[in-house]
């Protein structure tokens, strides 16, 4: 049992090492180095919030309340899109490590999927400030964050396993993926209210796993109510599907990575 625990610890340490290495490689050679880990998502989020919170915002709502609502939506989405893109590139970008170190190949997309973690941290810090500024305070519903934080990463890992394995053989997938993610963002009520979607699409939004993730954040921080259990169930089904598909695809393709890397 202790042996198993030791192995698990070593493997977890390996994933964490790869995760840290991703950041080091990404910001190495820059003037402010690791500060970009937090600064980059903050700036991106700032631009979107300014644009959609103030420039394109309606006149009715309290601006701070609207910003909180936007952060709860765009922050998790930023983590999701960054995680998926990093995971997609993870095997190709780390082929030298894959070849020269005895590291399990599926750790690369898993570690890269967590690249959006700073975005989530920024969401939590900004939300805390805004909750205080708007006088909303913290409610019991904040406990939903215990699920809201890990669930998107579980989803990204599943998607990451699928796309990273495919990208090894079809590099065009990265370009397709970035367009797909942008399209998904605009078809998901992240920066606008679900009611603004065409009536035909509104029932379908429930099936969108990204919308469900955003909803859990909004329920715990903005609406301060229980998350929709059916939505949670749909999200869990998606996570299971992506993991099953990702593991199956990854296992099938990993034996031939070397020929394409």
């Amino acid at each position, binding site marked *: 049992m202790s042996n198993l625990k030791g192995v698990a610890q070593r493997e977890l340490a390996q994933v964490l090492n790869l995760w840290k*290495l991703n950041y080091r490689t990404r910001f190495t050679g820059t003037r402010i180095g690791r500060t970009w880990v937090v600064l980059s998502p903050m700036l991106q989020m700032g631009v979107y919030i300014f644009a959609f919170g103030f420039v394109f915002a309606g006149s009715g709502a309290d601006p701070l309340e609207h910003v909180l609502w936007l952060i709860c939506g765009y922050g998790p989405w930023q983590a999701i899109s960054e995680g998926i893109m990093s995971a997609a590139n993870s095997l190709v970008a780390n082929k030298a490590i894959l*070849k*020269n170190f*005895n590291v399990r190949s599926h750790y690369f997309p898993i570690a890269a999927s967590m690249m959006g973690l700073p975005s989530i941290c920024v969401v939590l810090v900004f939300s805390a400030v805004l909750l205080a500024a708007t006088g909303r305070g913290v409610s019991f519903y904040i406990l939903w964050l215990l699920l809201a934080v890990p669930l998107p990463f579980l989803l990204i890992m599943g998607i990451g396993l699928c796309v990273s394995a495919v990208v090894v053989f079809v590099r065009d997938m990265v370009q397709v993926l970035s367009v797909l993610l942008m399209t998904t963002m605009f078809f998901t009520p992240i920066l606008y209210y679900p009611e603004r979607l065409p009536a035909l699409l509104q029932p379908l939004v429930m099936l969108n796993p990204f919308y469900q993730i955003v909803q859990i954040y909004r329920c715990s921080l903005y609406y301060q109510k229980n998350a929709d259990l059916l939505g949670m169930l749909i999200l869990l089904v998606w996570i299971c599907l992506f993991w099953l598909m990702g593991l199956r695809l990854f296992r099938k393709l990993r*034996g031939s990575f070397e020929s394409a890397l």
Partner: protein
Amino acid sequence: MYIECKGLSKRYFASPIEYLKLGRQEGSCADFWALKDISFRIEEGERVGIIGRNGAGKSTLLNILSGYSHATEGELAVTGKVTPVMEIGSSINQEETGRENIRTAGRLSGIQENQLAERVQEVIDFVDLGEYIDQPMKIYSSGMIAKVSFACVLFTMPEILVIDEVLGVGDAAFKAKSEAKTRELCEKGKILLMVSHSMATIRKYTDRCIWLDKGRIRMDGSSAKVTEAFELSVKKEQESQLLTQMEKAIENSIFGEQVRINQLQVLQEDGTFGAEIHIHQAIRVKAEIQSEASLGQVDLQISCYSLRGYLLFASSYHKSTGQWLVLEPGRTAMLETRIEDCNFNTGTYQISLMICQKDTPFAKRAALFRVVNDQYYNYLDCPQVYYHNHAKLKKLHREENV
């Protein structure tokens, strides 16, 4: 600790779509088997070399053993931690210092945080780069990068070290250090598995060798025997290619209008036409020359070349007899020359006959002959040379001043 392969095969698919159709038994015509039915067992402490021509499947086998690639068929059992060294320096982050890269390599190799500082210092001492160790690696020379990369591997204490053509990097002093370290690892019962195109490297570092040929094991045995057989096979193949080239060159080199060499034969000592001439036999070279016009005094030049085109000897009728040859027009002359004591090694040689006037050639013809040396040490293209040494003892008288 051991490595065991049973019927290991690896197929590369022709297109990415084929990768997705797994589980199917049939393959398309364009599919390529890099390895086919490989079986062997490597025990603790063994140092094994993998040799073979390009495309034989050496690197594919190492990739499978190191876990980077997977076999399409067969069983593989590896007990022990495999450390692959496939591309020296490729995993280095040039923006980071040598120290940071060593630390990263240690972490990726699974060294625990509480041992990391000690191990990093060991590597730093080993590579001995002085103050460069805290400089970004982008300013390092390629030799320095290779040193850091290789030292990182050695100090991760690999159980099974898998090396692809990268042993012996850096300067002479570092080579000696890394060689000693590699030997130390092997003496501790670790397994070394290396691919190299240098037979000298294989003989130096390994005691067992597996020769792969077109994805199959052709020979498995002591490094000395296997590398010798491999070298011989390569030479034979080269010889066959050179022979074809030389045959074509001979066909193209025949010329002569006013005078023609109709026939050129290399015969055995007794005048019979045999396939092979044995070392130390005499060779008889017979030629039939036909002259159409009166050329006056001409010379006959004979030269012998090895298969690789090295001139082994050359002689001329005029130089050896002091006379010129006069060919009567419309008549055929038979000429025969004799080369005493052929001291060539086993191989195919070219004898060339040329009729010329001063430096102007009139006719040329060449023929091939084969020599077999079954008596002495044999090395391609090198003639046997004997030195007759005579040592005489002479008493030295020293004049002493009284």
